[in-house]
């Protein structure tokens, strides 16, 4: 009843109040448009270790970029999607990100997912910065896919050369994951083994997310070899190293980043000591920019980043620098610019090391041969770009 007997003054006062409230609400909306990035990674399933690192790297990179004024003056908004380490889910998540209007995509890390979901990004013309290393990814003529680390066809030749020339290896056993990632590394290694005249004395495939490696290690112990090439994903590598130590394997175990990465060292403990291999990126490389990034990451997330975190971090800065080079946050312009591009640390400090991409999206950069000693990667040689 009270409402009905309001005076005109009271009504006017109410209108003024509501108008002021609406104006205040409108003022709270950001004045700048946001630049949307889709971060699609393995946050659960067998790839969670790698995916979480990559995600955190991307997150930290864009947070720094936003704190420094964003990209082309616009803040970056990251939307994160969990691929569940499932290729079909990852495909759906890439589609969802595209539907959400992203300019570019970071991820996925597991090759079995990337080979499937990159076709969706290609159809939509969205540049995708993947952490995957299977050779097939850049071999399919997709103009929108770009690596953040070498494909194994780039890394494995460097490692095989080191094995032949520095370690004098003649007979090799190969332990590999029977996945898209593992098959890529396996094929690359067999090709290099032929080139260097290695005799393959055992060829042992293992399963994704395998937990018990006792039988595989038993087989490995039964052969005469100078070294074993181990190409498994991080958690499986840690279980394998633990089992190898348990059964007293003395054979040199050589691999890629996934055998000697920091997550593997954390999981395998002392069993990781003595393992060696090629890494494209390492927090222990004594590169000041990388050391600084690692320290910031550790302080922020309370764990030591591995190469996947560095991949994610450099992906964020690559996107920023390239968007600013082309002067617009346009997906097509970014993808076009990436081909044949070289980014130096001088012009884009966030990439941490000078890096180049070719016409297929494959990258090239200096890398390292390291051995795990006392739970740390010790750089034994710096390998030039190839």
């Amino acid at each position, binding site marked *: 009843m009270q409402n009905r007997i309001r005076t005109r003054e009271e009504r006017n006062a109410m209108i003024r109040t509501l108008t002021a409230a609406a104006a205040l609400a409108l003022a709270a909306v950001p004045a700048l448009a946001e630049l949307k990035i889709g971060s699609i990674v393995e946050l*659960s399933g067998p790839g969670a270790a790698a995916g979480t690192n990559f995600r955190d790297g991307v997150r930290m990179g864009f947070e720094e970029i936003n704190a420094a004024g964003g990209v082309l003056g616009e803040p970056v908004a990251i939307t994160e999607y969990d691929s569940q380490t499932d290729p079909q889910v990852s495909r759906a998540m890439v589609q969802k990100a595209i539907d959400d209007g992203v300019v570019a995509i970071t991820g996925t890390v597991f090759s079995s997912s990337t080979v499937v979901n990159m076709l969706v990004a290609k159809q939509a013309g969205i540049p995708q910065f993947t952490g995957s290393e299977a050779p097939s990814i850049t071999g399919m003529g997709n103009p929108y896919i770009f690596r953040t680390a070498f494909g194994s066809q780039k890394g494995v030749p460097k490692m095989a050369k080191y094995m032949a020339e520095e370690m004098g290896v003649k007979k090799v056993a190969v332990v590999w994951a029977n996945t898209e990632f593992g098959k890529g590394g396996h094929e690359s290694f067999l090709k290099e083994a032929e080139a260097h005249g290695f005799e393959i004395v055992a060829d*042992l*495939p293992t399963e994704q997310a395998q*937990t018990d490696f*006792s039988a*595989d290690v*038993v087989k490995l112990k039964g052969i005469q070899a100078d070294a074993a090439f181990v190409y498994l994903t991080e958690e499986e590598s840690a279980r394998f190293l633990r089992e190898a130590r*348990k059964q007293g394997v003395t054979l040199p175990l050589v691999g890629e980043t996934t055998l000697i990465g920091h997550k593997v060292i954390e999981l395998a403990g002392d069993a990781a000591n003595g393992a060696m291999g090629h890494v494209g990126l390492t927090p222990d490389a004594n590169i000041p920019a990388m050391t600084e990034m690692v320290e910031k990451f550790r302080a922020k997330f309370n764990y030591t980043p591995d190469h996947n975190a560095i991949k994610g971090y450099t992906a964020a800065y690559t996107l920023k620098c390239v968007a600013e080079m082309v002067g617009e946050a346009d997906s097509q312009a970014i993808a076009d610019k990436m081909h044949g591009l070289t980014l130096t640390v001088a012009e884009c400090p966030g990439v941490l090391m000078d890096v180049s991409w070719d016409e297929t999206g494959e990258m090239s950069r200096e890398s390292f041969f390291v051995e795990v000693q006392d739970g740390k990667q010790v750089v034994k040689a710096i390998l030039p770009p190839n």
Partner: protein
Amino acid sequence: MAELIQILISGLAAGSIYALAAVGFTLLWQASQTINFAQGEFVMLPAFFVLVGMGLGLPMWPAIGFSLLLSLLILGVAFKKLVVEPMLPHGTLPLVIATIALGLLMKESVKEFYGATAQPFPAIFPQKVYHFAGASVSAQDIGNLIVSMLAIGGLQLFLNRTRTGRCMQASAQNPAVAEILGVDVKRMVMYTFLINAALATIASVLISPIYLAKFSNGETLGLVAFIAAIVGGFNQIRGALVGGLLIGVIDNLSAVYVSAEYRSAMPLILLIAIILLRPQGLLGTKEGRAV
């Protein structure tokens, strides 16, 4: 020969841990007709309780004690009171579905609160390797085998040689008569749940240094324990023991001598063969139930 010894020891060590989980399966079935499809997650979870304990500053052994206590409360008492008792009157099938839901809840909760990545887990045995007839046998394998066998042997003795154990058997075989004879059947059933929680904790502490502590560990373990229980005989503890050991050994033998790619199919093939040839399991009995 050395290779075979190595495979057998590794297989027995892994199988003995499967047996612990499988024994829990059979115990719950005997005591309360509960087919616990969350059994794998029951083995996964205590490892995280240990890590939480260590995160709170406890040394390893007190952290294991802390984990055991939490497991008894959550996987024993709370499981019985909050899941089994309300669901059991509605029949076995709703309870089975409830345990599947519980398993998912536990898995996703660990992922949410502790993270999706595997965690290093401390080994309770020294990292020593002994050489025996050309085979390298680790202290961890021997330790796992001994601890599992002691746990199952101790349980058998408890059930057969103590008054409480016999009351538990009576409650499982015929709850109505046991009650008439003055046995506190409810309490006996509760003991069974507590024993299952304790076995799961032991299995978790033994297997996590090998598997690493991860939210998804229960997927494999639950399936293997279920197969082991059926292969051995769902109504006999010694059947579950034999089933567990057999699967551990067959898994390793098939990975080395048959095919690494098809190793995970071997226990399932064994399961089908057993169901066709001896439905009650290797050591199971056709009728009557005994804990």
